[in-house]
């Protein structure tokens, strides 16, 4: 019998600590599959800062670094500058990348730092129990926006790909999601391209993965995937926001 699907090698054979139905697991697997397919596990360094995925160092077989909240792009800059032959990726959540680490994100992109950034946008702080994130939607109820996010009080959510696409620096910015088989396959293509760009020395690639947080959204895993379609994607449209090599960015 031929194996059609199995756990990728770059993913450790250990259980994830994520909640049932959390899409972090899917994205972890996609990253690991890409690492396998590109044959880069032995020279890849992953960096996971504070957030739900802070313990990603236990989940990837490649060398891993845990970083302070928001600082992964700076750490990645150091690692890449130290050993340019390493393939360096960061794996960051929305609070991390778009709030406390905004400066590190913007400037790594502006420098076109030759790294790959996987950005999980699930519109909430998951690890600390469901607080309002920089990407929480207007009206979204969270622990710290119990009456719904009021843009008059706390502003509007940050669209990271759109914001970064204004910069001259970055090579490739794409927003994907993982709420269906088709979308998962597209997400993998984007992630693979983001790693290939680094191998080719093209520079900064960021893949924003619109993700779910069933626990803190207070939904079943299946309904959370539907909520991505009905609520997240209208505010965060999928697509390529910048692609210097193909010049097909929006």
């Amino acid at each position, binding site marked *: 019998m031929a194996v059609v699907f199995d756990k990728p090698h770059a993913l450790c054979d250990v259980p994830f600590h994520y909640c049932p139905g959390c899409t972090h697991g899917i994205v972890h697997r996609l990253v690991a599959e890409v690492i396998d397919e590109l044959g880069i596990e032995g020279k890849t360094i992953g960096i996971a800062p504070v957030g739900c995925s*802070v313990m990603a160092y236990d989940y*990837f077989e490649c*060398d*891993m670094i845990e970083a302070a909240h928001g600082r992964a792009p700076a750490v*990645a800059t*150091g690692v890449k*500058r*130290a050993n340019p032959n*390493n393939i360096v990726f960061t794996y960051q959540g929305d609070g991390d990348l778009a709030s406390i680490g905004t400066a590190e994100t913007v*400037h790594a992109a502006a420098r076109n730092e030759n790294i790959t950034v996987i950005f999980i946008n699930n519109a909430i702080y998951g690890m600390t129990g469901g607080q309002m994130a920089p990407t929480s939607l207007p009206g979204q109820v969270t622990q710290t926006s119990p009456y719904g996010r009021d843009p008059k009080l706390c502003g509007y959510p940050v669209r990271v790909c759109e914001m970064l696409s204004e910069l001259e620096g970055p090579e490739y910015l794409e927003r994907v999601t993982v709420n269906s088989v088709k979308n998962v396959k597209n997400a993998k293509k984007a992630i693979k391209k983001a790693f290939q760009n680094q191998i080719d020395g093209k520079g900064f690639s960021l893949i924003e993965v619109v993700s779910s947080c069933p626990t803190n959204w207070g939904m079943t895993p299946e309904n959370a995937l539907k909520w991505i379609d009905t609520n997240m994607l209208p505010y965060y449209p999928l697509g390529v926001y910048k692609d210097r090599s193909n010049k097909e960015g929006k």
Partner: protein
Amino acid sequence: MAEKVLMKGNEAIAEAAIMAGCRHYFGYPITPQTEVAAYMAKRMPKIGGTFLQAESEIAAINMVYGVASAGLRSMTSSSSPGISLKGEGLSYMAGADLPCLVVNVQRGGPGLGGIQPSQSDYFQATRGGGHGDYHMIVLAPASVQEMAELTVKGFELADKYRMTSMILADGTMGQMMEPVSLDFDIAPPPEKPWATTGTGMKRKHNIINSLYLKPEELERGNFERYKKYAEIEKNEARAEEYLTEDAEIIIAAFGIAARVSKNAIDAARKEGIKVGMIRPITLWPFPKEVFKKTTSTAKRYISVELSMGQMIEDVQIATEFKAPVDLCNRVGGMIPDPDMVLEAIKKAAKEVK
């Protein structure tokens, strides 16, 4: 003896760092340490190194964290307000047992303070500076020569003990020009099998981490780190003694304060006052033993500082409160002059009569 070159303190640090094998410097502009960055910006591209002006002090220390994770010698430099911003990174470096060199060319505070010399980051440096239980090795140069020598030493100690070394200088040390000999014996850095350089599919993955959710594990890590600190306290404490043998009064001073005090001591000796000085070269570990052995002869101590009295607490602890310790200080960018120190010596001399 190699020939001497005339250098600014800040430049001496930068050149010594390069000699010690540092090829990755990250910084952010702040007075009065900017010459370190400017020197690195000129030199690094010519020797295949990296100079990168980071978007913030926070980013700079985290870039250092990245290079240190990759097993290479790296440094950043700043001045007091910038060091506060680096506090987070310094704590993470300690928690992940990463070696690096950090330079603090201190200026007066608190807040934005001023740009003139100060020693008021003593507590911040010797107690760790960031959150959690940890120390840095803190080196206090008192000449441009020492700015260079202690930079090399700092890298060596950082690698030896897998922790941060800090050069705690001040604006005068940074700006002062003196002849320097850059003739160092520099040992190659040790092997770093723990570094994240890629598994090469030949070993289990390395992990750089400071997160331990199981309290037993976190406690164990802290205990082990403090065992290492105890070794360092035993082996690495250094001080210069000046006329302490017969001294009834002993001045404690480091950096620029020590240079000023030396003049005052010479003047006081001419007046027949038995006064000497202990100049800590390592502020952490504090040279406790050097102070302790003077308590049989010395009757009074004077801590000369450019702060509101910070090192004085370490002097009291090291001398086990056996003799009074006076404070002779200026702050805010002001520097005690030899006359002021001489007055303090004379006042102390009356007390010990």
